[in-house]
């Protein structure tokens, strides 16, 4: 690494570096404008849109407006509850199943694999209609239940854990059985502690996916009390007549911030977790 950094600066290298810097600036521009606009007064937004630093900061006003129109804490809280529940149930359901498929003599393993492959192919968009009809009949719309239930099963989770468990040595499990553990004990005390990398990666993947999901919440929730962050932002936009971009950007900033902060704090794990979908092939 140090040897590389001392590499001579050639014209080619300088050019490559410039391209990188310019592209990065383009990619980051939306964030800069989001922050800057969240601090601008309405009049300034209309007159000087290219200046990044607000001439008189209106952060407080804009944030106050954002908080007054829609209950931001409630949105974030809903996001946490829904993502937390989904993740917990997904892991509890998927881990034992993946273990059974990977390490036990399983009668219907082939059928199960076929189901998993089918599940990997079918997104929520394809199953949404009947589930919606059923929830409507059962009067389950506008509830945490409706938001969480369809995602209680993650075939991707099963698939990911399955791959991971297969790489655990059989002898480890044999040793645990000889030590007198039940199968559930093997899962809890041997498999799970050794599967943290996979579980962490899956957690990040799952939370990011469901925190950002708009499609399903949009379908089953019309009551603001159960709105998740993306849906809440839609409600906010609907309530916002005209172009009050200052307040809108403030709201956007509040809603984007938690996940972005988490990403910046645990970048490496995030990148790993999200690219874990790269194993899907």
């Amino acid at each position, binding site marked *: *690494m140090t040897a*590389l950094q001392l590499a001579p600066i050639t014209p080619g*290298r300088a050019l*490559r570096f410039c391209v*990188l810097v310019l*592209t*990065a600036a383009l*990619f980051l521009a*939306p*964030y800069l*404008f989001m922050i800057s606009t969240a601090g601008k007064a309405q009049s300034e937004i209309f007159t000087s*849109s*290219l200046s990044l630093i607000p001439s008189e900061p209106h952060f407080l006003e804009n944030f106050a407006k954002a908080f007054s129109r829609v209950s931001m804490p409630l949105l974030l809280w809903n996001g946490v509850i829904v993502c937390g529940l989904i993740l917990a149930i997904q892991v509890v*359901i998927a881990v*034992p*199943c993946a273990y*059974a498929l990977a390490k*036990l*003599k*399983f*009668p219907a393993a082939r059928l199960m694999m076929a*189901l998993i492959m*089918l599940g990997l*192919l*079918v997104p929520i*968009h*394809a*199953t*949404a*209609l*009947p589930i*919606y*009809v059923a929830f409507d009949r059962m009067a389950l719309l506008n509830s945490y239940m409706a938001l969480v239930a369809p995602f209680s*099963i993650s075939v991707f989770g099963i698939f990911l854990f399955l791959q991971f468990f297969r790489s655990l040595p059989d002898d480890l499990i044999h040793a645990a059985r000889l030590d007198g553990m039940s199968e*559930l004990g093997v899962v809890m005390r041997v498999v799970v502690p050794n599967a943290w990398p996979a579980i962490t990666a899956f957690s990040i993947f799952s939370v*990011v996916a469901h925190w*950002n999901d*708009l*499609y399903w919440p*949009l*379908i089953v929730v019309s009551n603001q009390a159960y709105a998740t*962050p*993306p849906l809440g*932002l*839609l409600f906010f936009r609907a309530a916002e007549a005209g172009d009050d*971009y200052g307040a*809108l*950007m403030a709201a*956007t900033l509040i*809603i*984007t911030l938690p*996940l972005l902060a988490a*990403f910046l704090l645990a970048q490496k794990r995030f*990148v790993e977790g*999200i*690219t874990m*979908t*790269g194993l*899907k*092939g």
Partner: protein
Amino acid sequence: MASIASTPVVLIDLEAERQMRTGLLLAAPAILLILVFIVAPMLAVLVLGFTDFELGYGSFRFVGLENYAELFSDRTFLASLRNTAVYTAIVAPVSLLLGLGLALLIESEPVGRSFFRTAFFLPVASLLVAMATVWQYLFHPSIGPINAALRLVGVAGPNWLGASDMVLTSLAIIGIWQSVGFNMVLFLAGLTAIPRDLYAAAEVDGAKSARDRFFLVTWPMLGPTTLFVITISIINAVKVFETVKTLTEGGPNKASEVLLFTIYREGFVYLRVGYASAMTMVFLAVLVVLMIAQYRLLDREVHYG
């Protein structure tokens, strides 16, 4: 002798049976949920596609292929298919090439690697609905920074999201911005996985220029990654929804009507469940074809068994 030999056989059978029972027990919740939330709804969509079921009306009847016949004379749906195809044809290749290019640049430049990786990956981890709102502001025809910048150089900027000939391009720009980082990270992982020795061998074998080494080592070794990136880019582009719902609602003039948005509106706004189910089947067929293409056609070419 015979009894000694037969004893272990009985024991193994018991063990297998025990494992089978435990296995079923451990997998039962997952199996049940797959049946309830994936298999049953899939079958229901298939069946509903042949009915005129509408939510709110008590009764429905089977109409055979009527829904499918209607689909292919439905101008909105056809526009929606066409728009989705155009959007995908822009977003998938551009974000693939941009992702590869950025990965190669980052890989070759030792300074600032983690900064660049973060910068390009940030959009992937951001809430798309929120960032779409920011893009709406950036794209605003009169007060948006993009057109303000264009005015500075004397160009009259277009009405990005408001003109029917621009709206798909604008949505595609957001789509590319959002997905490049993902592709880049996959390519970076693919690049790191290439054994350094292969480059050394290529150099000794006479590959003098960076271009020679790219075509001898890098490009072929990235084959599996590229295949995966192509598939996932296309699938994600076909699934475009958030930006359309947030920014254009399919407008102006159905110019940004895309598959998932059309299904959403038919099924959940107009509540024509039967008709929307038929659309869903078409959507699924597209996904299935893409998957089969990945596994069958290309897999053979790039897997080095």
